[in-house]
């Protein structure tokens, strides 16, 4: 079944909006991780810094993957 081009454009537009929103959520998570890492480092609870850095890296990889998906 061939969808009209207008419908396809609308679907694609919705997907692009969702991807952008998801990247914003990833950024908020990374910001929270950075704040917690700094608080832990300054407060002597350094054990949280390593996992926070790894989690932030995973969010960054996810953001890059989504960005590449949008570029196609």
């Amino acid at each position: 079944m061939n969808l009209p081009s207008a419908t396809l454009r609308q679907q694609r537009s919705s997907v692009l909006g969702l991807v952008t929103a998801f990247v914003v959520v990833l950024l908020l998570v990374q910001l929270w991780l950075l704040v917690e890492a700094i608080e832990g480092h300054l407060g002597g609870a350094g054990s949280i810094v390593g996992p926070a850095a790894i989690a932030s890296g995973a969010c960054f990889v996810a953001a890059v993957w989504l960005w590449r998906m949008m570029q196609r």
Partner: protein
Amino acid sequence: MPDSIPRWREDFPINWEDDHYVTRRSFTTFLTFISSALFLGTGLVALREWWQRWRPAQFTALRIAAVSDVTIGQAKLFFYPTKTDPCLLVRVTANRFVAYSQKCTHLLCPVLYQKEKKQFHCPCHEGYFALEDGRPLAGPPKRPLPRIVLQVKDGSVWATGMQV
């Protein structure tokens, strides 16, 4: 027949609105750059943490005051480990001294010792810290005051290290 394009448009052919239009793709590219910066920041904090664990800071001993110079309940200001690090020494009892960094762990305002309430008070945002261990009691501070390691010998109080 008049020209449809005004002369100034020929001299300045850039459409301002089109030039400033931000597509979702370019906005997401910008967000990805922000993501990389946040990841870089978290990574730098992790590197700093591991560096400090690998090469712990070395503290030199510093004579703060003679025991007889500080009365019970009195607070004395001193600088340790550098001249830009103000600290407070408090004589709790005849045989017990405590000392903490004077910088509030919220936004680095100098804290004041309240003798009657036996606590430290930060006037900037109404933060309070306990005398016994420097832990935050109220207000926006979430981390305890860094504690100065003390040693009493030969009638003098010495600062020998710092605990976060």
